[in-house]
Protein backbone atom coordinates (compact mmCIF):
# COMPACT_ATOMS: atom_id res chain seq x y z
CA UNK A 1 0.00 0.00 0.00
CA UNK A 2 2.84 2.39 0.75
CA UNK A 3 4.01 2.51 -2.85
CA UNK A 4 0.52 3.61 -3.84
CA UNK A 5 0.60 6.31 -1.18
CA UNK A 6 3.97 7.45 -2.50
CA UNK A 7 2.70 7.62 -6.06
CA UNK A 8 -0.44 9.47 -5.06
CA UNK A 9 1.39 11.91 -2.82
CA UNK A 10 4.10 12.54 -5.37
CA UNK A 11 1.49 13.38 -7.98
CA UNK A 12 -0.20 15.81 -5.60
CA UNK A 13 3.17 17.32 -4.67
CA UNK A 14 4.03 17.89 -8.33
CA UNK A 15 0.73 19.73 -8.67
CA UNK A 16 1.44 21.88 -5.64
CA UNK A 17 4.91 22.82 -6.91
CA UNK A 18 3.60 23.92 -10.28
CA UNK A 19 0.57 25.71 -8.80
CA UNK A 20 2.68 28.63 -7.67
CA UNK A 21 3.03 29.70 -11.29
CA UNK A 22 -0.50 28.99 -12.49
CA UNK A 23 -3.15 31.69 -12.81
CA UNK A 24 -6.75 31.99 -13.88
CA UNK A 25 -7.37 33.98 -17.06
CA UNK A 26 -10.74 35.69 -17.43
CA UNK A 27 -10.83 36.69 -21.07
CA UNK A 28 -14.16 35.42 -22.31
CA UNK A 29 -17.77 35.49 -21.27
CA UNK A 30 -18.41 31.77 -21.04
CA UNK A 31 -15.83 30.45 -18.62
CA UNK A 32 -12.39 31.33 -17.39
CA UNK A 33 -9.29 29.49 -18.52
CA UNK A 34 -5.71 29.19 -17.36
CA UNK A 35 -2.41 31.02 -17.78
CA UNK A 36 1.18 30.59 -16.67
CA UNK A 37 3.36 33.20 -14.97
CA UNK A 38 6.08 33.91 -17.51
CA UNK A 39 8.10 36.46 -15.56
CA UNK A 40 8.19 37.67 -11.97
CA UNK A 41 7.48 41.20 -13.16
CA UNK A 42 4.02 40.28 -14.38
CA UNK A 43 4.01 38.69 -17.83
CA UNK A 44 1.48 35.89 -18.22
CA UNK A 45 1.45 33.45 -21.11
CA UNK A 46 -1.81 31.81 -22.12
CA UNK A 47 -3.76 30.34 -25.02
CA UNK A 48 -4.77 32.78 -27.73
CA UNK A 49 -8.31 31.45 -28.10
CA UNK A 50 -9.24 31.98 -24.45
CA UNK A 51 -8.55 35.70 -24.75
CA UNK A 52 -11.66 36.56 -26.73
CA UNK A 53 -11.54 40.28 -26.10
CA UNK A 54 -8.77 42.85 -26.05
CA UNK A 55 -9.75 44.58 -22.83
CA UNK A 56 -11.69 43.99 -19.63
CA UNK A 57 -9.29 41.16 -18.85
CA UNK A 58 -8.67 39.80 -15.37
CA UNK A 59 -6.23 37.33 -13.89
CA UNK A 60 -6.67 35.29 -10.71
CA UNK A 61 -3.33 34.95 -8.95
CA UNK A 62 -2.15 31.95 -6.91
CA UNK A 63 -2.57 33.93 -3.69
CA UNK A 64 -6.26 34.46 -4.48
CA UNK A 65 -6.02 38.09 -5.66
CA UNK A 66 -7.94 39.05 -8.76
CA UNK A 67 -6.15 41.72 -10.76
CA UNK A 68 -6.66 43.58 -14.03
CA UNK A 69 -4.61 42.48 -17.00
CA UNK A 70 -3.64 44.09 -20.28
CA UNK A 71 -3.17 42.27 -23.56
CA UNK A 72 0.45 42.62 -24.63
CA UNK A 73 0.35 40.52 -27.78
CA UNK A 74 -1.12 37.50 -29.51
CA UNK A 75 -0.14 35.14 -32.29
CA UNK A 76 -3.10 33.17 -33.66
CA UNK A 77 -0.88 30.93 -35.77
CA UNK A 78 0.89 29.43 -32.74
CA UNK A 79 -2.12 29.90 -30.43
CA UNK A 80 -0.14 31.97 -27.92
CA UNK A 81 -1.10 35.20 -26.16
CA UNK A 82 0.79 37.26 -23.59
CA UNK A 83 -0.83 39.38 -20.88
CA UNK A 84 0.63 41.73 -18.32
CA UNK A 85 -0.48 42.19 -14.72
CA UNK A 86 0.66 44.66 -12.12
CA UNK A 87 1.59 42.48 -9.17
CA UNK A 88 4.50 41.56 -6.94
CA UNK A 89 5.65 38.33 -5.40
CA UNK A 90 5.02 36.31 -8.55
CA UNK A 91 6.80 33.02 -9.12
CA UNK A 92 7.82 32.55 -12.73
CA UNK A 93 7.47 29.06 -14.18
CA UNK A 94 10.51 26.89 -14.77
CA UNK A 95 10.57 25.02 -18.05
CA UNK A 96 12.13 21.78 -19.20
CA UNK A 97 12.76 20.48 -22.69
CA UNK A 98 10.67 17.87 -24.48
CA UNK A 99 13.80 15.70 -24.43
CA UNK A 100 13.29 15.42 -20.68
CA UNK A 101 10.41 13.01 -21.23
CA UNK A 102 9.85 9.86 -23.23
CA UNK A 103 6.79 8.17 -24.64
CA UNK A 104 5.07 6.45 -21.72
CA UNK A 105 6.16 8.89 -19.02
CA UNK A 106 3.44 10.09 -16.67
CA UNK A 107 2.44 13.71 -17.05
CA UNK A 108 -0.25 15.95 -15.57
CA UNK A 109 -2.30 18.66 -17.24
CA UNK A 110 -3.11 21.49 -14.85
CA UNK A 111 -5.71 24.22 -14.98
CA UNK A 112 -7.09 26.95 -12.76
CA UNK A 113 -10.46 27.92 -14.27
CA UNK A 114 -11.64 28.57 -10.70
CA UNK A 115 -9.87 29.29 -7.43
CA UNK A 116 -7.87 26.10 -7.01
CA UNK A 117 -5.59 24.26 -9.40
CA UNK A 118 -7.13 21.16 -10.97
CA UNK A 119 -5.30 18.25 -12.54
CA UNK A 120 -5.70 15.37 -14.95
CA UNK A 121 -3.24 12.53 -15.46
CA UNK A 122 -1.94 10.83 -18.56
CA UNK A 123 1.14 9.59 -20.31
CA UNK A 124 3.22 10.98 -23.13
CA UNK A 125 1.70 9.35 -26.20
CA UNK A 126 4.00 10.67 -28.91
CA UNK A 127 6.98 12.96 -29.33
CA UNK A 128 8.09 14.06 -32.76
CA UNK A 129 9.70 16.86 -34.68
CA UNK A 130 8.64 20.24 -35.94
CA UNK A 131 5.12 20.68 -37.26
CA UNK A 132 2.84 23.46 -38.45
CA UNK A 133 -0.57 24.31 -37.03
CA UNK A 134 -3.51 24.59 -39.40
CA UNK A 135 -3.08 28.37 -39.16
CA UNK A 136 0.47 28.02 -40.41
CA UNK A 137 2.38 28.54 -37.18
CA UNK A 138 5.63 26.67 -36.69
CA UNK A 139 5.79 24.53 -33.57
CA UNK A 140 9.23 23.25 -32.66
CA UNK A 141 8.21 19.79 -31.46
CA UNK A 142 5.15 17.57 -31.53
CA UNK A 143 4.07 16.56 -28.02
CA UNK A 144 0.93 14.47 -27.68
CA UNK A 145 -0.48 13.00 -24.46
CA UNK A 146 -3.66 11.22 -23.42
CA UNK A 147 -4.62 13.64 -20.65
CA UNK A 148 -8.22 14.75 -20.41
CA UNK A 149 -8.44 18.44 -21.34
CA UNK A 150 -10.94 19.55 -18.72
CA UNK A 151 -12.96 22.73 -19.43
CA UNK A 152 -10.81 25.76 -18.70
CA UNK A 153 -7.51 23.90 -19.00
CA UNK A 154 -6.39 25.70 -22.15
CA UNK A 155 -3.47 27.99 -21.36
CA UNK A 156 -2.37 25.73 -18.53
CA UNK A 157 0.82 23.69 -18.32
CA UNK A 158 1.69 20.10 -18.97
CA UNK A 159 3.99 19.07 -16.13
CA UNK A 160 6.31 16.13 -15.66
CA UNK A 161 6.24 13.87 -12.63
CA UNK A 162 8.52 16.22 -10.70
CA UNK A 163 6.45 19.34 -11.30
CA UNK A 164 8.52 20.96 -14.07
CA UNK A 165 6.64 22.51 -16.99
CA UNK A 166 6.99 20.92 -20.40
CA UNK A 167 4.75 23.32 -22.27
CA UNK A 168 1.31 24.84 -22.56
CA UNK A 169 -1.87 22.92 -23.38
CA UNK A 170 -4.44 24.25 -25.79
CA UNK A 171 -7.63 22.48 -26.78
CA UNK A 172 -7.79 24.25 -30.13
CA UNK A 173 -4.53 22.87 -31.54
CA UNK A 174 -6.26 19.70 -32.59
CA UNK A 175 -9.67 18.10 -32.32
CA UNK A 176 -9.83 15.06 -30.06
CA UNK A 177 -6.10 14.87 -29.42
CA UNK A 178 -4.34 16.47 -26.48
CA UNK A 179 -1.43 18.49 -27.84
CA UNK A 180 1.02 20.64 -25.93
CA UNK A 181 2.99 23.63 -27.19
CA UNK A 182 6.55 22.78 -26.08
CA UNK A 183 8.52 25.16 -23.86
CA UNK A 184 10.99 25.90 -26.66
CA UNK A 185 8.17 27.34 -28.80
CA UNK A 186 6.87 29.43 -25.89
CA UNK A 187 10.41 30.71 -25.32
CA UNK A 188 10.69 31.63 -28.98
CA UNK A 189 7.31 33.30 -29.45
CA UNK A 190 6.65 34.68 -25.96
CA UNK A 191 9.40 37.31 -25.86
CA UNK A 192 8.54 38.42 -29.40
CA UNK A 193 4.94 38.96 -28.37
CA UNK A 194 6.08 40.74 -25.24
CA UNK A 195 8.23 43.21 -27.13
CA UNK A 196 6.41 43.55 -30.47
CA UNK A 197 2.84 42.59 -29.68
CA UNK A 198 2.81 40.12 -32.53
CA UNK A 199 5.08 37.74 -34.36
CA UNK A 200 6.86 39.34 -37.30
CA UNK A 201 7.12 37.24 -40.39
CA UNK A 202 9.36 37.85 -43.34
CA UNK A 203 7.74 38.46 -46.69
CA UNK A 204 8.88 38.29 -50.33
CA UNK A 205 5.77 38.68 -52.42
CA UNK A 206 6.07 35.70 -54.72
CA UNK A 207 3.95 32.76 -55.68
CA UNK A 208 6.18 29.81 -56.47
CA UNK A 209 6.32 26.09 -57.11
CA UNK A 210 9.13 23.53 -57.14
CA UNK A 211 10.73 22.89 -60.55
CA UNK A 212 13.47 20.53 -61.64
CA UNK A 213 16.84 22.18 -62.26
CA UNK A 214 18.91 21.54 -65.42
CA UNK A 215 21.29 18.59 -65.25
CA UNK A 216 24.43 20.69 -65.11
CA UNK A 217 23.20 22.59 -62.06
CA UNK A 218 22.00 19.40 -60.37
CA UNK A 219 25.45 17.84 -60.51
CA UNK A 220 27.09 21.15 -59.62
CA UNK A 221 24.89 21.88 -56.61
CA UNK A 222 23.81 18.41 -55.55
CA UNK A 223 20.30 19.83 -55.52
CA UNK A 224 17.50 18.56 -57.79
CA UNK A 225 14.85 21.28 -57.53
CA UNK A 226 14.46 25.01 -57.06
CA UNK A 227 11.45 27.27 -56.72
CA UNK A 228 10.05 28.52 -60.02
CA UNK A 229 8.49 31.95 -59.50
CA UNK A 230 5.01 31.92 -61.00
CA UNK A 231 3.96 35.40 -59.91
CA UNK A 232 5.59 38.49 -58.43
CA UNK A 233 3.41 40.85 -56.38
CA UNK A 234 3.57 44.49 -57.49
CA UNK A 235 5.46 46.80 -55.08
CA UNK A 236 6.71 43.77 -53.17
CA UNK A 237 10.24 43.12 -51.87
CA UNK A 238 10.62 40.57 -54.71
CA UNK A 239 9.74 43.12 -57.38
CA UNK A 240 12.03 45.70 -55.80
CA UNK A 241 14.86 43.18 -55.81
CA UNK A 242 14.38 42.63 -59.54
CA UNK A 243 12.89 39.14 -59.43
CA UNK A 244 10.88 38.15 -62.50
CA UNK A 245 8.21 35.66 -63.39
CA UNK A 246 10.11 32.61 -64.61
CA UNK A 247 13.13 33.00 -62.32
CA UNK A 248 14.00 29.84 -60.43
CA UNK A 249 15.17 30.67 -56.95
CA UNK A 250 17.58 27.97 -55.71
CA UNK A 251 19.68 29.57 -53.00
CA UNK A 252 18.95 32.23 -50.37
CA UNK A 253 20.88 33.55 -47.38
CA UNK A 254 23.20 30.57 -47.29
CA UNK A 255 20.46 27.95 -47.62
CA UNK A 256 19.51 25.73 -50.53
CA UNK A 257 15.97 26.43 -51.68
CA UNK A 258 14.41 23.23 -53.00
CA UNK A 259 10.77 23.71 -52.05
CA UNK A 260 8.35 26.09 -50.32
CA UNK A 261 9.27 24.97 -46.79
CA UNK A 262 12.87 26.01 -47.41
CA UNK A 263 11.74 29.49 -48.44
CA UNK A 264 9.37 29.76 -45.44
CA UNK A 265 12.29 28.83 -43.19
CA UNK A 266 14.33 31.77 -44.51
CA UNK A 267 11.50 34.30 -44.25
CA UNK A 268 11.82 34.67 -40.48
CA UNK A 269 10.85 37.71 -38.45
CA UNK A 270 14.41 38.52 -37.49
CA UNK A 271 15.33 38.90 -41.15
CA UNK A 272 12.76 41.64 -41.76
CA UNK A 273 14.55 44.63 -43.24
CA UNK A 274 17.72 42.68 -43.91
CA UNK A 275 19.37 42.37 -47.31
CA UNK A 276 20.22 38.77 -48.11
CA UNK A 277 22.10 37.21 -51.01
CA UNK A 278 20.10 34.95 -53.29
CA UNK A 279 20.79 32.98 -56.48
CA UNK A 280 18.29 32.49 -59.28
CA UNK A 281 18.35 30.69 -62.60
CA UNK A 282 17.26 33.05 -65.39
CA UNK A 283 17.36 32.17 -69.08
CA UNK A 284 19.69 29.26 -68.38
CA UNK A 285 22.13 31.43 -66.41
CA UNK A 286 22.72 31.50 -62.64
CA UNK A 287 22.55 35.04 -61.27
CA UNK A 288 23.36 36.59 -57.90
CA UNK A 289 20.73 38.92 -56.57
CA UNK A 290 20.25 40.94 -53.39
CA UNK A 291 16.82 40.84 -51.74
CA UNK A 292 15.69 43.04 -48.85
CA UNK A 293 13.15 41.01 -46.94
CA UNK A 294 9.90 42.74 -46.10
CA UNK A 295 7.33 42.12 -43.38
CA UNK A 296 4.10 40.14 -43.74
CA UNK A 297 0.96 41.96 -42.66
Amino acid at each position, binding site marked *: *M*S*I*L*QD*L*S*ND*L*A*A*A*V*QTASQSIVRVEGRRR*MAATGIIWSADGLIITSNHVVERDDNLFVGLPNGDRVEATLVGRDPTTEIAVLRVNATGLTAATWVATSDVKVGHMV*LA*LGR*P*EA*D*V*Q*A*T*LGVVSAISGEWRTMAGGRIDAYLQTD*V*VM*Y*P*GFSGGPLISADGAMLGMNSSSLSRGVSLTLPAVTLQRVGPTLASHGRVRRGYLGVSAQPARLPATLISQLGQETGLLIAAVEPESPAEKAGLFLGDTLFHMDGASIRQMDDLMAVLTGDRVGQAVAARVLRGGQALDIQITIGERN
Partner: protein
Amino acid sequence: MSRVLSQLNLALSGMVDGVLRSVVQVRDSARGAGAGTIWHNDGLIITNAHVARGGALQVALYDGRVLNATVIARDDKRDLAALSIEANDLPTIPLGNSAQLLAGQWVMALGHPWGVMNATTGGVVIGVGKNLPELPGMRQDWVVADLHLRPGNSGGPMVDVAGRLIGVNTLMTGPGVGVAVSVDAAKQFLRDVLGTPTADAVTDSQSQYV
Protein backbone atom coordinates in the same frame (compact mmCIF):
# COMPACT_ATOMS: atom_id res chain seq x y z
CA MET B 1 8.02 -5.76 -16.06
CA SER B 2 9.95 -3.31 -13.92
CA ARG B 3 10.00 -3.72 -10.17
CA VAL B 4 8.22 -0.46 -9.49
CA LEU B 5 5.43 -1.17 -11.96
CA SER B 6 4.94 -4.68 -10.57
CA GLN B 7 4.76 -3.31 -7.04
CA LEU B 8 2.27 -0.66 -8.14
CA ASN B 9 0.10 -3.23 -9.85
CA LEU B 10 0.18 -5.52 -6.85
CA ALA B 11 -0.73 -2.69 -4.53
CA LEU B 12 -3.57 -1.53 -6.80
CA SER B 13 -5.14 -4.94 -7.23
CA GLY B 14 -4.69 -5.70 -3.53
CA MET B 15 -6.43 -2.49 -2.54
CA VAL B 16 -9.25 -3.06 -5.03
CA ASP B 17 -9.79 -6.62 -3.79
CA GLY B 18 -10.17 -5.32 -0.25
CA VAL B 19 -12.67 -2.63 -1.21
CA LEU B 20 -14.78 -4.88 -3.45
CA ARG B 21 -15.96 -6.85 -0.44
CA SER B 22 -17.94 -3.76 0.57
CA VAL B 23 -19.41 -3.13 -2.88
CA VAL B 24 -22.91 -4.37 -3.58
CA GLN B 25 -25.21 -4.43 -6.56
CA VAL B 26 -28.61 -2.82 -6.12
CA ARG B 27 -31.37 -4.45 -8.17
CA ASP B 28 -34.98 -3.50 -8.75
CA SER B 29 -37.40 -6.11 -10.07
CA ALA B 30 -34.49 -8.47 -10.82
CA ARG B 31 -32.64 -5.91 -13.00
CA GLY B 32 -29.39 -4.28 -11.95
CA ALA B 33 -30.03 -0.66 -11.11
CA GLY B 34 -26.58 0.30 -9.92
CA ALA B 35 -24.12 -0.23 -7.12
CA GLY B 36 -24.01 0.51 -3.43
CA THR B 37 -21.46 0.71 -0.64
CA ILE B 38 -21.69 -0.97 2.77
CA TRP B 39 -21.47 1.88 5.27
CA HIS B 40 -22.13 -0.02 8.46
CA ASN B 41 -21.62 -3.66 9.32
CA ASP B 42 -25.21 -4.03 10.52
CA GLY B 43 -26.58 -3.60 7.03
CA LEU B 44 -26.57 0.14 6.26
CA ILE B 45 -25.84 0.75 2.60
CA ILE B 46 -25.30 4.07 0.84
CA THR B 47 -26.19 4.56 -2.81
CA ASN B 48 -27.67 7.19 -5.14
CA ALA B 49 -31.28 8.24 -4.95
CA HIS B 50 -31.58 7.61 -8.67
CA VAL B 51 -30.46 3.99 -8.13
CA ALA B 52 -33.01 3.43 -5.37
CA ARG B 53 -36.05 4.70 -7.27
CA GLY B 54 -37.72 1.44 -8.14
CA GLY B 55 -39.78 -0.73 -5.85
CA ALA B 56 -38.86 -4.18 -4.50
CA LEU B 57 -35.17 -3.45 -4.16
CA GLN B 58 -32.69 -6.21 -3.58
CA VAL B 59 -29.01 -6.10 -2.78
CA ALA B 60 -26.52 -8.65 -4.11
CA LEU B 61 -23.47 -8.96 -1.86
CA TYR B 62 -19.93 -9.72 -2.95
CA ASP B 63 -20.17 -13.12 -1.27
CA GLY B 64 -23.10 -14.04 -3.50
CA ARG B 65 -26.02 -13.58 -1.11
CA VAL B 66 -29.03 -11.67 -2.41
CA LEU B 67 -31.12 -9.93 0.25
CA ASN B 68 -34.21 -7.76 0.23
CA ALA B 69 -33.52 -4.10 0.95
CA THR B 70 -35.58 -1.34 2.55
CA VAL B 71 -35.13 2.31 1.65
CA ILE B 72 -34.56 4.12 4.94
CA ALA B 73 -34.07 7.53 3.34
CA ARG B 74 -33.94 9.06 -0.10
CA ASP B 75 -32.89 12.59 -1.00
CA ASP B 76 -33.36 13.30 -4.69
CA LYS B 77 -31.78 16.74 -4.41
CA ARG B 78 -28.52 15.35 -3.04
CA ASP B 79 -29.01 12.16 -5.08
CA LEU B 80 -28.29 9.97 -2.09
CA ALA B 81 -30.20 7.12 -0.51
CA ALA B 82 -29.70 4.91 2.53
CA LEU B 83 -30.77 1.27 2.33
CA SER B 84 -30.99 -1.37 5.01
CA ILE B 85 -30.55 -5.11 4.67
CA GLU B 86 -30.89 -7.83 7.26
CA ALA B 87 -27.30 -8.85 7.85
CA ASN B 88 -24.61 -8.50 10.49
CA ASP B 89 -20.83 -8.45 10.44
CA LEU B 90 -20.71 -7.15 6.92
CA PRO B 91 -17.36 -5.88 5.66
CA THR B 92 -17.57 -2.09 5.82
CA ILE B 93 -15.51 0.40 3.93
CA PRO B 94 -13.32 2.73 5.97
CA LEU B 95 -14.38 6.35 5.58
CA GLY B 96 -12.06 8.97 4.20
CA ASN B 97 -12.17 12.76 4.30
CA SER B 98 -12.97 14.47 1.01
CA ALA B 99 -12.03 17.94 2.31
CA GLN B 100 -8.41 16.80 2.45
CA LEU B 101 -8.27 15.57 -1.12
CA LEU B 102 -5.70 17.22 -3.37
CA ALA B 103 -5.74 17.61 -7.13
CA GLY B 104 -3.48 14.96 -8.63
CA GLN B 105 -4.07 12.26 -6.02
CA TRP B 106 -4.88 8.82 -7.34
CA VAL B 107 -8.42 7.51 -6.84
CA MET B 108 -10.39 4.48 -8.03
CA ALA B 109 -14.09 4.00 -8.65
CA LEU B 110 -15.76 0.61 -8.27
CA GLY B 111 -19.09 -0.72 -9.42
CA HIS B 112 -20.78 -2.61 -12.20
CA PRO B 113 -20.40 -0.57 -15.40
CA TRP B 114 -22.73 -1.79 -18.10
CA GLY B 115 -23.43 -4.80 -15.90
CA VAL B 116 -19.79 -5.94 -15.77
CA MET B 117 -19.65 -6.92 -12.12
CA ASN B 118 -17.06 -5.66 -9.66
CA ALA B 119 -15.11 -3.59 -12.13
CA THR B 120 -12.79 -0.70 -11.42
CA THR B 121 -11.53 2.41 -13.12
CA GLY B 122 -8.79 4.77 -11.93
CA GLY B 123 -7.56 8.30 -12.36
CA VAL B 124 -6.60 11.40 -10.45
CA VAL B 125 -8.64 13.95 -8.56
CA ILE B 126 -9.29 16.85 -10.92
CA GLY B 127 -10.88 18.97 -8.26
CA VAL B 128 -13.18 19.02 -5.25
CA GLY B 129 -15.88 21.50 -4.43
CA LYS B 130 -19.32 22.92 -4.78
CA ASN B 131 -18.97 24.63 -8.12
CA LEU B 132 -18.88 22.68 -11.32
CA PRO B 133 -19.49 24.95 -14.31
CA GLU B 134 -20.88 22.10 -16.35
CA LEU B 135 -23.45 21.25 -13.69
CA PRO B 136 -25.27 24.52 -13.17
CA GLY B 137 -28.00 24.40 -10.58
CA MET B 138 -26.55 21.36 -8.86
CA ARG B 139 -24.58 22.93 -6.02
CA GLN B 140 -23.31 19.96 -4.11
CA ASP B 141 -20.00 18.95 -2.65
CA TRP B 142 -18.45 17.01 -5.54
CA VAL B 143 -15.29 15.04 -6.14
CA VAL B 144 -14.33 15.10 -9.82
CA ALA B 145 -11.79 12.64 -11.23
CA ASP B 146 -10.46 11.74 -14.67
CA LEU B 147 -11.70 8.19 -14.64
CA HIS B 148 -14.39 6.43 -16.65
CA LEU B 149 -17.78 6.09 -14.95
CA ARG B 150 -20.52 4.33 -16.85
CA PRO B 151 -24.11 3.28 -16.09
CA GLY B 152 -23.83 0.70 -13.31
CA ASN B 153 -21.19 2.59 -11.35
CA SER B 154 -23.77 4.77 -9.60
CA GLY B 155 -23.85 4.37 -5.86
CA GLY B 156 -20.57 2.55 -5.81
CA PRO B 157 -17.52 3.85 -3.97
CA MET B 158 -14.81 6.22 -5.10
CA VAL B 159 -11.79 5.46 -2.92
CA ASP B 160 -8.34 6.84 -2.26
CA VAL B 161 -5.10 4.82 -2.37
CA ALA B 162 -5.72 3.56 1.14
CA GLY B 163 -9.07 2.12 0.10
CA ARG B 164 -11.01 4.73 2.07
CA LEU B 165 -14.34 6.02 0.80
CA ILE B 166 -14.02 9.56 -0.53
CA GLY B 167 -17.12 9.72 -2.72
CA VAL B 168 -20.28 8.01 -3.98
CA ASN B 169 -20.07 7.64 -7.78
CA THR B 170 -22.94 9.60 -9.24
CA LEU B 171 -22.53 10.81 -12.80
CA MET B 172 -20.25 11.52 -15.70
CA THR B 173 -19.80 14.85 -17.45
CA GLY B 174 -17.93 13.39 -20.40
CA PRO B 175 -16.40 10.04 -21.35
CA GLY B 176 -13.27 10.74 -19.35
CA VAL B 177 -14.60 12.59 -16.32
CA GLY B 178 -16.41 10.98 -13.36
CA VAL B 179 -18.22 12.85 -10.63
CA ALA B 180 -18.97 11.61 -7.12
CA VAL B 181 -20.93 13.08 -4.26
CA SER B 182 -18.22 13.65 -1.65
CA VAL B 183 -18.04 11.39 1.40
CA ASP B 184 -18.32 14.50 3.56
CA ALA B 185 -21.68 15.26 1.93
CA ALA B 186 -22.72 11.62 2.40
CA LYS B 187 -21.81 11.78 6.08
CA GLN B 188 -23.94 14.91 6.43
CA PHE B 189 -26.82 13.24 4.61
CA LEU B 190 -26.78 10.27 6.98
CA ARG B 191 -26.57 12.58 9.97
CA ASP B 192 -29.57 14.52 8.68
CA VAL B 193 -31.81 11.68 7.68
CA LEU B 194 -31.20 8.65 9.82
CA GLY B 195 -34.64 8.06 11.10
CA THR B 196 -36.16 10.76 8.89
CA PRO B 197 -36.57 10.02 5.18
CA THR B 198 -36.76 13.06 2.91
CA ALA B 199 -37.78 13.32 -0.70
CA ASP B 200 -37.38 16.55 -2.69
CA ALA B 201 -37.85 16.91 -6.41
CA VAL B 202 -34.62 16.51 -8.35
CA THR B 203 -33.29 19.45 -10.37
CA ASP B 204 -32.84 18.51 -13.99
CA SER B 205 -29.42 18.58 -15.58
CA GLN B 206 -27.91 17.67 -18.91
CA SER B 207 -25.35 15.30 -17.46
CA GLN B 208 -25.76 11.63 -17.91
CA TYR B 209 -26.40 9.70 -14.74
CA VAL B 210 -24.39 6.58 -14.32
